[in-house]
């Protein structure tokens, strides 16, 4: 099925209805495995002790925080360049999810930082740029809510999303450029991951679980958004008819 087939909202809704139960089940399964691995098989880190378990929640959410903005950026290009009908639906549905994951990354990071570094927060490059990312998510959501017409809102949000995408490489490489407090990259780097498999496996499983969670929620939220636009269109049509009668 080509991408263009998905452009038909009705067909998209049918596809989502069929796929969601499977996705939800896969997500639940992945979380079950991930949580089991994190809590029962992952060894304590020799330096951090059991608090390394926070990493299994913190890192996947941090990855998703950036990943969701990337998804939104691709959707924005779809809106501005190809005028794909569902592109701005995808962008709008992703924003609250991305904000939630970014919040979790910041929150769990603070809880990890307190025992490890002695402080909940520090203004180093990585934390600051992720906080800015969180503010940008909130700004995008605010923009969506301020403009009445969904397609105009979509175009405005698309531009703002692409401008904000400049922040993503800054976040990714900030820990390498400015070595302040947050540790440098240890998984996604040239030369492969630098973490022991016993810790890497639970991490990747939890990352898979959160990723599947995003896909599931995203498709469901897209479905909701399509329905919302139908409600709006029908409401407008009805008001128009009542006015004309």
């Amino acid at each position, binding site marked *: 099925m080509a991408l263009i087939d998905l452009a038909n909202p009705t067909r998209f809704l049918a596809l989502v209805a069929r796929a969601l139960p499977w996705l939800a089940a896969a997500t639940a399964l992945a979380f079950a495995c991930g949580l089991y691995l994190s809590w029962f098989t992952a060894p304590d880190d020799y330096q951090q002790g059991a608090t390394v378990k926070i990493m299994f929640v913190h890192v996947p959410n941090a990855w998703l925080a950036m990943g969701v903005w990337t998804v939104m950026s691709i959707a924005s290009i779809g809106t501005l360049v190809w005028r794909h009908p569902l592109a701005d639906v995808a962008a709008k549905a992703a924003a609250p999810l991305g904000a939630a994951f970014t919040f979790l990354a910041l929150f769990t990071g603070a809880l990890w930082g307190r025992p490890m570094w002695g402080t909940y927060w520090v203004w180093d490059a990585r934390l600051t740029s992720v906080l800015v990312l969180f*503010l940008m998510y909130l700004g995008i959501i605010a923009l969506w809510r*301020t403009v009445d017409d969904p397609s105009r809102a979509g*175009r405005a949000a698309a531009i703002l999303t692409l*401008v904000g995408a400049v922040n993503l490489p800054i976040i990714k490489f900030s820990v390498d450029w400015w070595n302040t407090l947050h540790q440098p990259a240890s998984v996604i780097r040239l030369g492969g991951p630098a973490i022991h498999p016993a810790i890497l496996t639970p991490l990747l499983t939890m990352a898979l679980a959160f990723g599947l969670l995003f896909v599931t929620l995203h498709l469901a939220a897209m479905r909701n958004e399509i329905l919302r636009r139908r409600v709006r269109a029908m409401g407008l049509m009805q008001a128009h008819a009542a006015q004309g009668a």
Partner: protein
Amino acid sequence: MTALAALLVRDMRLAVRIGGGALMGVLFFLIVVTLTPFAIGPDLVLLERIGPAILWIGALLASLLALDRLFAADHEDGSLDLLLMGSAPLELTVLTKALAHWITTGLPLVIATPLLGLFLNLEPQAIGAVVLTLLAGTPALTCIGLIGAALSVALRRGGLLLPVLVLPLTVPVLIFGVAASNAAITGSGFGAPFMILCALTLGSLVLGPLAAGAALRQGVE
């Protein structure tokens, strides 16, 4: 080229007219910098330490305040449509408006800084550093603000949306502006943050008009 020059002169004239709001920014800047010692207390040593930061935040907020008049007035009387249909490329038109805005809003802030620096007990060297960084950084604030102004031009109930959109994008400018100022005061490492500040300004001179032009095309339909 004459079209753009005419636009520049027109915008500058409109800005300094009564109701144009050009010098309001400087007034706000003055108020913010004056309020701060009331809140912090007259500890001169402390004020000197955080002086550059206060000046930068004041300049940032004052720039933000004046941004919505960038496109709103033109949108209301229809001249924005004329600009969009004009022969000059939209991005250059937008850049010209940004230049007029900076000359009438950003530059007065830079000129007012030495006086305000005295209020904050800054040394002449510190004042010079802050003036230089503001000179390099206020164009970036204007160009980044362009994007928010263009996005919210057609929104009647824009309200605080414009600052909310623009402020996260201006954070790097603020960080490096203050870093450069502080580095000049302590005497080491001015070059690197200042270069990055200049790079941010140059980048925003390109990105701002591009994004603002795209936003105007999409929004004013």
